[in-house]
């Protein structure tokens, strides 16, 4: 099977191809929020699915979290399921600093990053001895711990003189949005931007009518902040993985013993990977706090840990685009399942039950069977039928690289296009 079009790497066509690809992605990321500024409704059959800005912002935060899981599970090969714990820590730190100490939301990252990084390294230390499924068991138990940690009322935290449950407001959850709200600064001409797109013929009607309300402007501003954090996180992680550190981590994943023999300091790199992964989860937690404005410990228990696995599997284990898809999947699957009220041949009363987890479970098993590289890998295979990018040497010889026929096993070699899979 050969692709329909062949593009030589580095040629002008290739440059155009990349620009179009990236351009449409950036356009989608920036324009969809303007379209969805309120609520977009799509009807399928008799079900109507609502898509809101809040889902999109939440998806950016979970994308960062899934990226963190990819770093440790996909790139380092350590089977840990406990990252939801660090997301909870990040969310609570942000909530406490904003609500009780009146920090600004984004500046809390200064505290969240080092603390979650060190916590992650602390979890990484025992992981030097504990391996494989034992590690999976320990970490999933740690994930289950967060709700009870947040309700601790006997241990007081130094410098604050308050117990943990006083700081976290125990089982009631910590409310931040009533204390501090993210306001869009006045200098952003939202109405002008909206007016510009509404003025475009044909497509203009998708951008709504008239100016944006203050609430919509704040939501859009919030989205931009979170997008900026996510872009920086992805960029940093990409650089890290393409560096010496990244190669060391992949060597550890492929075979610990031979990595150690080749001079990779296992203790250093493994704990580092745990730290980075936990810090990303912490950032995701901060983003969650920014987005929702309310932190409840029960949202950071086992269920979120399983959700991260869902995001990981749906998107793909070793592909940074997979993290984006995974973040969207974590948010969209449960909400779409909830709004599905009638499906032919299915009893109505069943659809009022826990459909979201059911769909997630089915997806986990289905994807592991038919598309172990995740949706992103599936799209790549599909694309390879139409467009193929070949290096100039091969093109000169007239040889064509065969597109990948078989799926990749989840934990083995990264796909050959890995170096190209990250944005550059």
């Amino acid at each position: 099977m050969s692709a329909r079009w062949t593009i030589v790497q580095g040629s002008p066509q290739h440059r155009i191809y990349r620009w179009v690809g990236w351009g449409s992605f950036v356009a989608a990321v920036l324009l969809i929020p303007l379209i969805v500024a309120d609520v977009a409704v799509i009807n399928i059959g008799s079900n109507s699915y609502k898509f809101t800005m809040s889902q999109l912002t939440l998806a950016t935060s979970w994308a960062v979290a899934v990226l963190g899981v990819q770093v440790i599970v996909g790139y380092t090969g350590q089977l840990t399921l406990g990252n939801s714990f660090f997301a909870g820590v990040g969310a609570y730190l942000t909530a406490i600093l904003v609500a009780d100490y009146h920090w600004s939301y984004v500046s809390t990252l200064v505290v969240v990053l080092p603390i979650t990084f060190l916590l992650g390294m602390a979890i990484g230390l025992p992981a030097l001895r504990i391996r494989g499924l034992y590690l999976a068991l320990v970490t999933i138990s740690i994930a289950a711990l967060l709700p009870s940690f947040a309700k601790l009322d006997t241990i007081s935290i130094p410098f604050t003189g308050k117990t943990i449950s006083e700081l976290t407001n125990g089982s009631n959850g910590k409310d931040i949005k009533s204390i501090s709200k993210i306001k869009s600064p006045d200098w952003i001409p939202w109405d002008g931007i909206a007016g510009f797109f509404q003025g475009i013929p044909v497509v203009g009607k998708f951008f709504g009518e008239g100016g944006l309300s203050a609430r919509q402007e704040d939501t859009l501003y919030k989205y931009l902040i979170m997008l900026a954090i996510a872009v920086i996180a992805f960029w940093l992680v990409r650089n890290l993985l393409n560096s010496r550190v990244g190669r060391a981590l992949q060597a550890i994943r492929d075979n610990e013993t031979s990595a150690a023999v080749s001079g990779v300091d296992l203790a250093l790199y493994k704990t580092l990977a745990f730290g980075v992964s936990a810090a990303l989860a912490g950032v995701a937690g901060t983003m969650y706090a920014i987005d929702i404005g309310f932190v409840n410990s029960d949202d950071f228990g086992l269920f979120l840990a399983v959700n991260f696995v869902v995001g990981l599997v749906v998107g793909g284990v070793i592909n940074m685009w997979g993290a984006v898809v995974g973040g969207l999947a974590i948010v969209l699957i449960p909400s779409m399942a909830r709004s599905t009220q009638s499906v032919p041949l299915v009893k109505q009363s069943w659809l009022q039950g826990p459909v979201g987890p059911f769909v997630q479970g089915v997806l986990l098993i289905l994807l592991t069977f038919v598309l172990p590289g995740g949706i992103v890998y599936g799209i790549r295979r599909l694309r390879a039928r139409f467009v193929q990018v070949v290096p100039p040497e091969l093109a000169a010889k007239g040889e064509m690289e065969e597109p990948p026929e078989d799926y990749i096993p989840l934990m083995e070699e990264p796909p050959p296009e890995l170096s190209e899979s990250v944005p550059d």
Partner: protein
Amino acid sequence: MDFDLLTSPELLLARIFDGLNAGAVYALVAVALVLIFKATTLINFAQGEMAMFGAFLAYIGWSEWGLPMWIAVVVAMILSALGAAAIERTLIRPFDPSDHLPLVIVTLGLLLIIGAVAGMIWKFDPRPFPELFPSGSAFRLGIANLRWYTVFTLAAAVAMMALLQFLLSRTKIGLAFRAVSSNLESSELVGIRVGPTLQFGWALAAAAGTFGAVIFVADPVRQIEPSIMLSVLIFASAAAALGGLDSLWGALVGGLIVGQVQTLLVNVFTFIPNEMALAAAVFVLLVVLVAKPSGLFGTARVERV
């Protein structure tokens, strides 16, 4: 520290009894995890949910089909064994047993699906489960009250362990089981039918798990509902890892230790608040695993390059 607890034997005894009670249940579920791990070096994250489903089948058998309770339990054990065999055949066997991640994902998927299906069918309102054991106390000293329930649960855990041990060490199928778990390829070469043997392991584990869940919900202080086994699974997997994932007796010891940590340790060291029972158990687990990475009684695996 609560010195009252150390000076008052009654109180101490009461705590130990509480711990035995919880520990025996953890051991019953942990042994199911260990069975599957022994056969396939895989942890079945859906074990708790499968056990919950089995317990629900027993409940339905009793309340809707009008079977006598113990018959209903046996029927449920058989049904869940059949279900687990089917799951092993369709969802587990296609994968390479040495590659953990896909299998962990499949069992997590099963956890979600089974939990969701149970929620759809039976909803989340708790229902009282009939008592299987005589109520009242077997032994009483002041406030220390050893209930018959605890005695029978413990006896059931020990009996099941002994039965499984007998099955594995004295019977032909047990020999095949051990051969497969020690070396899959070699046992295939000597003519053992690996697939059915592993399937048998899954069926056995599901029946054991169902039995554990039935006993767990048969405690008069509990009621049956679809999410009941989630927290038990965490404690039970801590117990299994503590004892060593491939040791049956390790599961029993691990279960009892986790039970004692949860009740005794947390109450002796009063600076550990009650909510931290799970954290204390995880902490003990961490310490044990760092000292002995394959658990107290597990066999250490040598890795070859």
